[in-house]
C-alpha cells in the first residue's frame, strides 16, 4: 500500500468544482431529508410536551427526560434490556465460539458445516420469530407439548419468564451464524506455527486454546460483543413484535420496543422522542467503542 492511501489522501486528484457536488448530491439530499431533519426533530420533540388532544405543544426543557427516569416502567425496561442483551450476546458468542473452534478443527467437512451453519443469517428476524413461535405455541407447538410431557407448563402468553426465554432463543438462533463466521475467520488467521510450537512443548488442546487461541481472538470477541449488543438493542425489535408484542405485562418490552409502543400506540411523542434521544446516546457510545477498537486493531 502506498503512503498516500495510509494518510487518507490521494496524490492524484481530478480537477472540477461542480462535478464533485453533483456526485455527492444524491446521497447528501437523502441524508439531509431522511436523517438530519428527523434527528433534529427528535431532539426538538424531546423538549416538547403535547397537550392531551395533540393540537398544541409547549417547551418543557428536560422535563420529558426527568419524567422518563422517574417512571418505573421505563426503568424496568432499562433493566430488562440490560438482561436481554447480556443473555443474547453471551450465549450467542459462547455457542458460536464453540462451533467455530470445532469447525476449525475438522478440516475435511469444514466448508459443508460452514454452509449449513451460516444461512440463518439470511432469515428475517420476524420470520425466525414466527418459526419459534410455532414450535412453542401453547396450543399446537411440538416443543410446548414436549415440555408439558415432562411437567413444564409452557405458556409464554401468560408467563413472562417464558416469553423472555422465547425471544432470547430466537434472537440467539438468528445471530449465531454471524458470530460463527467472524470467529472462524479469526481462528484461521492464527499462525499455525505458534500452535505447533506450543504442541511440541507439550501443551494440550485445551491449554493451547486457553493460553494462545483465546487471547489472540480477544479483538474479534470484543468487536462481536459490541455488534451483538447493538443487535440485541435494535434488530430484535422484529423478534419481539412478532413473537410477544412486548408482553405479557411488558416483560419483553425492551427499550426500542417501548419507543414504538409509546410513540405509535400511546401517541406520547414527547416521551417517545426523549426515549429515542436516550437510545441515540447509547448507540453513539457503542459505535465510538467499536471504532476505537478498530483503530487499535490496526496496530496488531
Amino acid at each position, binding site marked *: 500500500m502506498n503512503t498516500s492511501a495510509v494518510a487518507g489522501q490521494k496524490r492524484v486528484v481530478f480537477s472540477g468544482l461542480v462535478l464533485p457536488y453533483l456526485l455527492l448530491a444524491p446521497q*447528501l439530499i437523502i441524508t439531509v431529508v431522511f436523517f438530519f431533519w*428527523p434527528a433534529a426533530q427528535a431532539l426538538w*420533540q424531546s423538549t416538547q410536551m403535547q397537550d392531551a388532544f395533540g393540537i398544541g405543544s409547549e417547551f418543557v426543557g428536560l422535563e420529558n427526560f426527568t419524567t422518563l427516569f422517574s417512571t418505573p416502567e421505563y426503568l424496568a425496561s432499562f433493566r430488562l434490556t440490560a438482561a436481554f442483551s447480556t443473555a443474547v450476546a453471551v450465549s450467542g458468542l459462547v455457542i458460536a465460539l464453540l462451533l467455530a473452534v470445532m469447525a476449525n478443527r475438522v478440516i475435511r467437512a469444514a466448508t459443508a458445516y460452514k454452509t449449513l451453519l451460516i444461512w440463518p443469517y*439470511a432469515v*428475517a428476524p420476524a420470520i425466525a420469530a414466527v*418459526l419459534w413461535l*410455532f414450535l412453542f405455541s401453547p396450543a399446537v407447538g411440538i416443543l410446548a407439548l414436549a415440555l408439558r410431557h415432562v411437567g413444564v407448563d409452557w405458556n409464554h402468553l401468560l408467563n413472562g419468564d417464558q416469553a423472555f426465554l422465547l425471544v432470547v432463543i430466537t434472537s440467539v438462533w438468528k445471530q449465531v451464524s454471524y458470530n460463527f463466521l467472524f470467529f472462524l475467520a479469526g481462528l484461521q488467521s492464527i499462525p499455525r506455527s505458534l500452535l505447533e510450537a506450543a504442541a511440541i512443548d507439550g501443551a494440550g488442546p485445551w491449554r493451547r486454546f486457553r493460553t494462545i487461541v483465546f487471547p489472540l481472538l480477544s479483538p474479534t470477541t470484543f468487536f462481536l460483543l459490541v455488534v451483538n449488543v447493538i443487535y440485541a438493542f435494535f434488530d430484535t425489535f422484529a423478534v419481539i413484535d*412478532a413473537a410477544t408484542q412486548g408482553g405479557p405485562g411488558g416483560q419483553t418490552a425492551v427499550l*426500542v420496543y417501548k419507543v414504538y409502543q409509546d410513540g405509535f400506540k400511546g401517541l406520547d411523542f414527547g416521551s417517545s422522542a426523549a426515549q429515542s434521544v436516550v437510545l441515540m446516546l447509547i*448507540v453513539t457510545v457503542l459505535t465510538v467503542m467499536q471504532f476505537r477498537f478498530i483503530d487499535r486493531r490496526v496496530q496488531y
Partner: protein
Amino acid sequence: MIERRPMLDLLAHLILLIGVLLVAFPVYVTFVASTQTAAEVQQAPMSLLPGSHLIENYTQVITGGSNTGSSAPVGRMMWVSLITALVISIGKISISLLSAFAVVYFRFPGRMLCFWMIFVTLMLPVEVRISPTYQVVAGLGLLNSYAGLTLPLIASATATFLFRQFFMTVPDELAEAARIDGASPMRFFRDILLPLSRTSIAALFVIQFIYGWNQYLWPLLVTTQEDMYPVVIGIRRMIAGGDAATEWNLVMATAMLAMLPPAAVVVLMQRWFVKGLVDAEK
C-alpha cells in the same frame, strides 16, 4: 489439526452436527407444517413427516393468502419485497459509488464537511429515529409507496465507507495515466474504477439485498395498505388473529417462501457474502 486425536475429532463432528440440527430443526418443522392441512397441524402432536398438501397450500398462499387474519396474496407481497430489496441494494450501491468517488478523487471546498455529514449516519440506525422519520415521510406523502419504503433505509453510510476504503487502495498510477490520456473523470470512473470494484459491488449487493428483504419495523410503519405489505410484514398480519384461529399450515408455507430468496442468495453467493460482511464491518 496438530496432533492426531481421533476422539477429539469425533467430538468436534458431534458438536457440529448438533449445531447443524439445532439450526435446521425449526425450518424442518416449518416445512413439514406447510405440507399438511390445518387440521393435521392442529393435532397434538402434529406428525413430523411431510403431508400431501404441499402444492395446494403454496398455491393458496401465493394467490389468495390465508382465510383468517390477512387475506392478501403472498405472491404480491413477495413482489413488494423483491422490489424493495432491489431498490435498497442498487440505490445504496449507486449513490455510495458516486459519493465515495467524489470524496476520494476530488479536492473541493466543504469536502470534509460532506464527508462527516455522510459518516455520522453510521451511528444511528433507523430504529432510533422512527417517529420523526415517520413524520417526515408522512409529510412528504410517501406512505404506502416504494419511495417511502426504501429512501430512509438508503440513507446510511456503510456502503460509502466500504467504497472509500476500496478506492484508497487503487494505485494512483491508474488515475495519473487516465489524466495524461485526457480521460474525463467520469470516463475514469466508468472504465477503470467500476470494473475494479466488481467484487466489492457483488459482495455489498448480497448483504444489502438481505438487509432490504428482511426489513420489519420500517415497513410496519409506512405501509397500511395490504397491497404494499412486504412478505415479512404480511406474515405477521396472518398470525394476528390469535393462536387458535391461526392457520399454521398456510403461515408456515408463507414463512418458507419468505425465507427462500435471501437464503438462496447467501448460499449461492457465499464467497461474496462472507467478503462483504467482513469488509463492511471492519
